[in-house]
Each structure stands twice: as C-alpha cells, then as structure tokens.
C-alpha cells in the first residue's frame, strides 16, 4: 500500500486536480499564516498563495514522495516570495530595512499580528513580531507553529541547521521581554 506522501507525489506528477484540491483545503490556512509571518503584512499574500499552488501544479513532479510534503510546499512558497521580491525590487528577507518594519514604524494601521491576536500574550507579542526581522519571524512560526524539525526548517530556508537554531534563539530573546515578569 502506498504511503500518503507517495500518493501525493503520484497525484502531482499526473497533475491530478482532485489531489490538488485536497491539498489546498488542507494547507491553505497554514500557507497564509507562513506568508504573513514571512512578509509581516496581509496585502499581497493571497496572490502569493495562488502563485504557490500554480507552481505546485507546474513543478509537482519534482516532489518525490520520499519526505514529508509540508516542508516541500513551504519551500515552494518561500521561493515564490523571493522571486516576487527580486522582480519588484521590494526588500530582502535578511534586511533590517524591510517593508514590514518600515510600515510598522510609520503607519497607524494595525499590523496583521495585532489584528490576529486572540489572547493577551499574543497581543503583547504582536508589536515586537511586526518589528522583528522576517528571517527570525519565519523560523519561529516554522518551529513552534508548524512543528518542523530544525533539519526541515534548514531545507526550507536554505540555511545551515546551526543558523536556523541561532535565529530561533534570537527570535525568542526578542520576544521574551514582552512577557517576562508578567503573571500568566
């Protein structure tokens, strides 16, 4: 009997729309959340989601079904973002001066994190998340929301495991003061 990942790989090789529909239903929210963390903004995310799925359709045969599908999907999404940035000369994921940070500092509009905060602690973290560099936000969501291993995150972001770990430490260090000393 074929495993789920092999069935997904077969479906993608054949351009099977039924398989794609099931994947869209299953992963759409997670993809949207990852892209918001990566970009630090809400606008444009839907277009990037759509482009991601079209690339999954086009390049689906490069997924071999030997490893989990999710890291492969998130790597595709990340590549779409990087390509879009190159084309539009937006900003670099590694840059301090990214669009999201500048916007957070100059705009009165609430950030996507403020709008999405459903708990007191999340509300406290929202502003720091908005000003955190994308590469740190990215690893936090991949590790603690997506529950990817360090190796999987390393494959998604194209950085060594040690770099991924350092980014997680720095991301936690930036957010920790927002909650330290508060009673839960």
């Amino acid at each position, binding site marked *: 009997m074929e495993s789920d990942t092999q069935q997904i790989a077969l479906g993608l090789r054949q351009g099977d729309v039924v398989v794609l529909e099931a994947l869209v239903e299953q992963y759409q929210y997670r993809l949207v959340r990852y892209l918001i963390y990566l970009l630090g903004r809400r606008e444009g995310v839907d277009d990037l989601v759509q482009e991601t799925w079209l690339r999954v359709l086009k390049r689906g045969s490069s997924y071999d079904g030997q490893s989990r599908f999710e890291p492969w999907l998130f790597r595709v999404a990340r590549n779409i973002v990087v390509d879009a940035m190159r084309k539009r000369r937006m900003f670099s994921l590694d840059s301090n001066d990214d669009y999201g940070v500048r916007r957070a500092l100059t705009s009165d509009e609430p950030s996507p994190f403020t709008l999405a905060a*459903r708990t007191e602690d999340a509300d406290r973290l929202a502003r720091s998340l908005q000003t955190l560099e994308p590469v740190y936000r990215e690893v936090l969501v991949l590790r603690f929301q997506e529950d990817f291993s360090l190796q999987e995150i390393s494959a998604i972001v194209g950085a060594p495991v040690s770099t991924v*770990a350092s980014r997680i430490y720095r991301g936690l260090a930036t957010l920790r003061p927002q909650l330290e000393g508060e009673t839960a």
Partner: protein
Amino acid sequence: MNIDHHESFERMIDESLAGAISAEREQSLREHLDTCPPCQEYLSAGNRVIAGLGGFSFEVDPTLNARVLASLRRRAHPDRRRWTLVSVAAVVLTIGGSFVDLQFGDLIASAFDIQHMQVRQGLLTFWIVPSLCGLLLFPLLPWLSKAGTRREERTL
C-alpha cells in the same frame, strides 16, 4: 553562582526550547532547573512566548480557496483542450476537402478548364493530405509536450 555559568544554562534552555539540545545536556539542565528559580522563570517566559505564538488566528478570505481551485482547474490541462480543438479542426478540414471534391470538383474543373482528376490531385496535395497528417500528428503532441516538460524539470 557566577554569571557565565548562569548564562550557559540560559543558552541550554533556548536550545531545549528549539529542540537543538542533546539528551546529556538536557539531563544536566533538568537537574539545574530544580534548584534555580531565575532559570525556571527564564524557561517559563520562553514557554509563554511559544504559547503566545499560538494565540494568533489570521483571517483567510473565504473566496480564496474557490479562486485558487478555479485557476488550478483552468491550468491543469490547458494542452489537452488545445489539442482536442486542433484535432477537431483537422477532422473538419479532411471531411471538408473530400466534400469539395465530390460536390464541386466538376464545377472547378470546368471553371479552370482542367480535368476533374487534376482538381482532385490538387485538393489531395494541398488540402486533404495535410489535414490527414495533422489529424494523425496532433494526438501525439500532448505526449511529446509532456516529455519535453519532464526534461525541463530534470534540468531545474
């Protein structure tokens, strides 16, 4: 306890939260945590950050899935539709050529003062045979196109 020693345990707490700590260091950290309230607080704040990250719920446009699926369906088999149309056109052309020969062959021959056989040869050469070739060739193009796409993906 000196500060360096304490910082090394804070580093171990970060490693533990990130899932980057060895079993041996984890054991050492657990023993330290039993006796160190500041490190317990540091760990607790880290755990609260992680729990806090779970406190976001982003809204997804309810029409997004439908839009994505519609565009996937449109793009899933664009070639198949194109090849079908071309094949139908080839069938129509082949039948049309034969029909012209049978119905208007004599008329064309007398109009140009040539024999009916010459009209038939002309129609066969420039209309019916090319249409037949198209009819036979086009069903093969999707496979040729797919093979080309696979080759392109292997080089990516």
